[in-house]
């Protein structure tokens, strides 16, 4: 079910009304789990079996890991969990990609291998919920987490509908305690779900911003991006730069908009989901960018991949290799396609090069100029130049198109033929890019603006709701483009 459809609005109102009307704790929890399964079943049908299978596997494996003191047994159980989850993910998401590469190699070596494609339907949100369940068993294995006492609570952690299909990737240690009255994991009675006034108003305000980002900005900037990158060969450098900036804003509006709706919806129900974005386009270095962009994924990769590989505790060379390898896998996580891998490798090399520079020239990193306003602005521009270059790889799948676009982005031709045409035929999208940049600068300077709006008088807040709804309605292009991150 898409957040930006009337179906979701109706679904959410029904869920809220029932939760508010029936205050019996156990019922509320069972109902929330059933509603989450319905939300998933709505667009995934029989693939819900995978979600349930993954839940059951990790619940019992997690419990078994906790109950055994035998280290080898613990390891075997962890491997069972990893093989189960990654096997599921690999089989459904990467099987056809692997077959394609295998057939291609076979062709190169005249092996006459032509394995038929499996043509499997990719289960929605599989990358998100498998990462959640993996983190659960790994945390138990590491002794950092006590397993969930009931399957129902664990199932709700995996399937909680606001974050089920596109994150944020929630850790059990963040979510499970919220189901209980006491903060400590698994202690206290089951918590009653109460819709508090402050949560309701703040949650709706966050959701409203999410809808605005997705439906007003991202969906209306998308035609410009399609216009440029559907056929980029022949476009001049400034057009490609405009396309890269437009796509960067589109994907940010799309994904952070989704996350806002998820965080707002969860907050109304009394659950706190972790922040997933923190003004990423104001990052002053590649590592700063990954502390601000898709935070739940980058911290997951750090805790469950980068650190186990040795992180930065081994040699410099090993650290650079770890960074590149982790980002390679991070790219692959986004989809079974070479362009995502290139995107990941680019980010891996940015991180590695940045680390090399910091290590080799510590005086440069500590230079006072970079602490000044102009220094920060310069750092932001340099960082974002490379971030937007990488977005080209993320967006453009065709290799020739990608290479052409990236070379035009790097080697400026100073032509203005196509840029004029593109701007003339996409005035609204270009205007929205300008508006988005201005709005974000204001949001960057004015801290906690969403909280402030949620605290204004009710009659003023009424006009806020009317304005946001009207802006979304009058700019609705006639179809609801799916959230880009649903496919991952």
């Amino acid at each position, binding site marked *: 079910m898409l957040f930006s459809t009337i179906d979701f609005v109706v679904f959410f109102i029904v869920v809220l009304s029932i939760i508010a009307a029936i205050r019996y704790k156990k019922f509320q929890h069972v109902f929330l789990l059933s509603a989450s399964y319905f939300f998933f079943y709505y667009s995934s049908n029989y693939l819900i079996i995978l979600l349930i299978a993954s839940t059951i596997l990790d619940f019992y494996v997690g419990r078994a890991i906790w109950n055994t003191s035998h280290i080898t047994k613990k390891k075997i159980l962890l491997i069972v969990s990893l093989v189960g989850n990654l096997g599921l993910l690999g089989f459904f998401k990467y099987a056809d990609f692997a077959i394609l590469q295998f057939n291609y190699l076979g062709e190169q070596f005249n092996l006459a291998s032509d394995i038929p494609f499996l043509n499997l339907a990719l289960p929605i949100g599989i990358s998100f919920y498998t990462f959640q369940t993996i983190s659960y068993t790994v945390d138990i294995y590491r002794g950092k987490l006590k397993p969930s006492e009931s399957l129902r609570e664990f199932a709700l952690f995996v399937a909680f509908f606001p974050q089920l299909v596109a994150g944020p990737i929630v850790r059990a240690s963040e979510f499970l305690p919220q189901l209980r009255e006491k903060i400590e994991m698994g202690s206290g009675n089951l918590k009653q779900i109460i819709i508090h006034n402050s949560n309701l*108003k703040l949650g709706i305000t966050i959701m409203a911003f999410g809808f605005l980002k997705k439906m007003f900005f991202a969906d209306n900037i998308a035609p410009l991006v399609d216009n440029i990158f559907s056929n980029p060969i022949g476009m001049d450098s400034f057009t490609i730069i405009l396309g890269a900036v437009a796509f960067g804003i589109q994907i940010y509006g799309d994904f952070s908009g989704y996350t806002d709706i998820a965080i707002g919806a969860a907050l109304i129900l009394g659950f706190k989901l972790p922040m997933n974005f923190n003004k990423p386009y104001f990052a002053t270095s590649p590592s700063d960018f990954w502390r601000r962009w898709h935070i739940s994924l980058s911290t997951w990769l750090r805790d469950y991949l980068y650190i186990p590989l040795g992180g930065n505790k081994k040699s410099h060379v090993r650290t650079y290799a770890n960074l590149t390898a982790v980002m390679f896998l991070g790219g692959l996580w986004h989809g079974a396609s070479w362009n995502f891998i290139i995107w990941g490798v680019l980010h891996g090399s940015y991180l590695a090069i940045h680390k090399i520079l910091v290590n080799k020239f510590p005086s440069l990193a500590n230079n006072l100029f970079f602490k000044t306003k102009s220094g920060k602005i310069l750092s932001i521009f340099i960082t974002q130049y490379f971030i937007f270059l990488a977005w080209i790889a993320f967006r453009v799948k065709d290799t020739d198109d990608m290479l052409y676009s990236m070379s035009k982005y790097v080697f400026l031709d100073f032509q203005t033929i196509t840029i004029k045409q593109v701007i003339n035929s996409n005035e609204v999208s270009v205007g929205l890019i300008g508006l988005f940049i201005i709005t974000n600068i204001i949001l960057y300077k004015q801290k906690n603006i969403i909280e402030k709006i949620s605290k204004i008088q009710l009659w003023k807040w009424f006009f806020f709701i009317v304005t946001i709804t009207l802006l979304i309605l009058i700019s609705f292009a006639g179809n609801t483009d799916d959230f880009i991150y649903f496919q991952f």
Partner: protein
Amino acid sequence: MNLKISLTVLIGIFVAIIAFYVIMNWYPSNFDPVYTWTEHIKNESDNPKILLLGSSHTGVLDTNYIQKYVISNGLEHEVYNLAIASDYPTRRAQTIGYISELKPEMVFYGIEIRMFEGQGNVKQEQLTALQISEIKNVMPNAKEFFQKTVFPLTDNDFFTKIPKSPKIVTLQTIKHFVRDSNHTSSLDINSNRPFFNIKNEVSPIKELEELKKEWELKNLKFNGINPQINREFDALKDLIRELESKNIKVVIFATPKSSVYLNWLTSEDKVIFDQMLEEIEESGITVYNEYDTYANYNIWTDIVHVVESKLGIVYSEDIAKKIVEEIKR
């Protein structure tokens, strides 16, 4: 749950919907050239009407010639060429309601491969729709059940009068205020080709070799057609259904292209386009495929447009014959 907050949200959304409804309905009656023209023509005469729809590829048809040909065949029908530059089915869907209110006897819609280009195959977000559509409903279809239960409420006049793409209406409204003088000039209310003004200076014919050289210099690439998710093709089918539901006969014709253009397209794209035409034909609609009829003729002003002068009259002659054939059928 705080009743005040909930009511504020519900009333806020309600007020926004009402304001939206008013804006959407206020615009066409004031500025939309199609609305203005249909209102003007509605009471002009009771003669049956034939409407030509499409883009500039239809716009270059000599409507006066077609009208004379129809009359010379003893028919009273009035022919109007309602072509608009860069027409797309989704764009046409905005005004099809006004057009159908004229109760034309027949609509001739000129379509072309460009209209369906890239629809879906390059949009990452649409991959999800494809992904969802590939999931077979092995178990009962929850979406269908949910929509059948909830959405009969929206099946009334209030909702059907809201345009399919409010964004286009909003943009037209903004453009009306920003560029008032340009906007009004796009409507020639007394013409039988009211939305497509041919310049006084007719474009010259170019040799195919010359066109080929010019085209190769542009180094453009056709972006392909996605046969599975194609918003424009869906909109075209919706348009046909809507017109047929009002007892208006629909005839589709694929507008002609030069050999330079046809050679530039991949055979795969041509096959997909042919399959689209076949799909329309299978639903009982007459389809004329004029795609390569004049491919090697010397009548082109660019690789896709037949010259507007008498030198390109063969195109109008053929369409005129087809119109008469269809009227008499």
